[in-house]
């Protein structure tokens, strides 16, 4: 039983990170129907920013928990700036182009950012300090759940609740929903669609940066390539949950994380990807639009 729970919390942690990244994919897809392949790289840049800031602050002698907070804030701002710029440089000029063009541009951006980080940092794995302090009360959980896992899960829940409320009740959130449902009409009621698209990239990138810093601190090392794998997995989670749907991305992330954790724990870690992608294939056979996705019916 203890082993089962340990796997459960491990899966929950992974799933949370997938969910945080998947939200960025699904929001961008919802608004401009583009798979932003550079999104994984934004997550990686968030993690690197966290590493640099944490290193600086440690040298300056800041106390533990404040390092985590400041590193998170800096990573969010820096990654959001990257997300915003990527959209302006690589996607906005292609707004009226055939759908394949921005997709190719996205893949190009992804490769560019990976190599840019590899050249400016290094291609080796870099150690990442553990930013989450060990909470005293966590010793009751033994090996089942660590402090950093708890922080990841709680942070993800908070972010998801916050995002849901934001989309539902704020002016910008309403503008985003309207733009996702019909961009032309959104323009005609006076929504500044360019602004909405930029905001979507900024929010998605911020979420990815939070995930990047937290998971890097949990695992303890990063390199320029982490964004690619995490990106593919999170994209899978977004498709699993129904691309374009926010609750779908959250659920898809959790389902994928848990599947991988149990596959690793009870079968073999070699099979973790096999199970993850088998699940994707099964879901796409029986529910092509994803778990929470809706088949699009247009009424004329």
């Amino acid at each position, binding site marked *: 039983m203890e082993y089962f729970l340990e796997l459960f919390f491990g899966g929950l942690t992974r799933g949370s990170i997938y969910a945080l990244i998947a939200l960025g994919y699904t929001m961008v897809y919802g608004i401009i129907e583009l798979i932003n392949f550079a999104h994984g790289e934004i997550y990686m840049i968030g993690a690197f920013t966290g590493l640099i800031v944490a290193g600086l602050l440690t040298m300056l002698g800041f106390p533990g928990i404040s390092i985590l907070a400041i590193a998170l804030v800096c990573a969010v701002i820096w990654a959001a700036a990257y997300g915003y710029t990527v959209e302006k440089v690589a996607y906005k000029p292609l707004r009226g182009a055939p759908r394949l063009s921005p997709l190719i541009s996205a893949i190009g951006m992804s490769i560019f950012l990976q190599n840019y980080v590899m050249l400016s940092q290094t291609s080796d794995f870099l150690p990442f300090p553990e930013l989450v302090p060990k909470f005293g009360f966590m010793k009751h959980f033994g090996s089942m759940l660590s402090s950093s896992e708890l922080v990841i899960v709680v942070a993800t829940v908070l972010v998801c609740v916050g995002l849901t409320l934001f989309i539902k009740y704020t002016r910008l959130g309403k503008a985003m929903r309207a733009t996702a*449902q*019909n961009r032309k*009409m959104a323009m*005609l*009621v006076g929504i*500044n669609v360019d602004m909405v698209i930029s905001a979507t990239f900024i929010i998605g990138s911020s979420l990815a940066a939070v995930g990047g810093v937290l998971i890097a601190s949990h695992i303890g090392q990063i390199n320029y390539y982490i964004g690619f794998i995490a990106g593919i997995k999170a994209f899978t989670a977004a498709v699993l949950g129904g691309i374009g749907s926010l609750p779908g991305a959250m659920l898809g992330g959790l389902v994928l994380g848990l599947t991988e954790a149990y596959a690793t724990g009870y079968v073999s870690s070699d099979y973790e990807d096999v199970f993850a992608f088998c699940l994707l294939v099964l879901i796409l056979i029986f529910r092509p639009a994803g778990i929470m996705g809706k088949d699009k019916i247009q*009424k*004329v």
Partner: protein
Amino acid sequence: MTRMLELRNVNSFYGNIQALYDVNLYIDPGEIITLIGANGAGKSTTLMTVCGVVQARSGQVVYQEEEITREAPNKIVAKGICQVPEGRLIFPELSVRENLDMGAFMRNDKDGIKRDIEYCFDLFPILAQRRRQPGGNLSGGEQQMLAIARALMARPRLLLLDEPSMGLAPLVVRQIFDIVQKINKESGTTIFLVEQNANLALKIGHRGYVMENGRIVLTDTCDKLLADESVKRAYLGL
């Protein structure tokens, strides 16, 4: 008198394809203007050019003596021009009430918005009954009413209507045209009506323009256009 809207030698393109050729037209405050023409004549493009969704490559769009040719669509809405687009473009997953709220996106006066929603429910009682249903579940006629109500929520001075009769039963069309006339009379809203149903449009309009292949080919008062032999033959099927 200041003109409500004036198009001066407007040329608009989709990519490299020219859709409007030297379009000249004007609308005075309080008028109902109709623009009739066949499918693909450039009627919808004319409205999209006014709204800034399609930008004119040359020529001028002047609204109340102010040039708006290069303005962004959201700025144009803020100035008081609002469009009910072809195909209605209801937000399908938002409720009727939320669709109306979206129409008032540019406004901040909560009380005024509340009053206008009540006004719209008076105008279209069916919308009040369905206020909590998602817009995508409404029938075609109800969606058209919702689209008009949503446009009214922006308190437009100039209301652009693109083919409000499309795909609707004759009785519903009659009802919608009555309300369009009512809106014009009661609140003095200037109306620019684009229609393929030339017969009906010319009956409620004051002046009309006839468009063919992106050019305005004829303009007169609606009564004279209704009596015009070439219009009769081409558009009224007489």
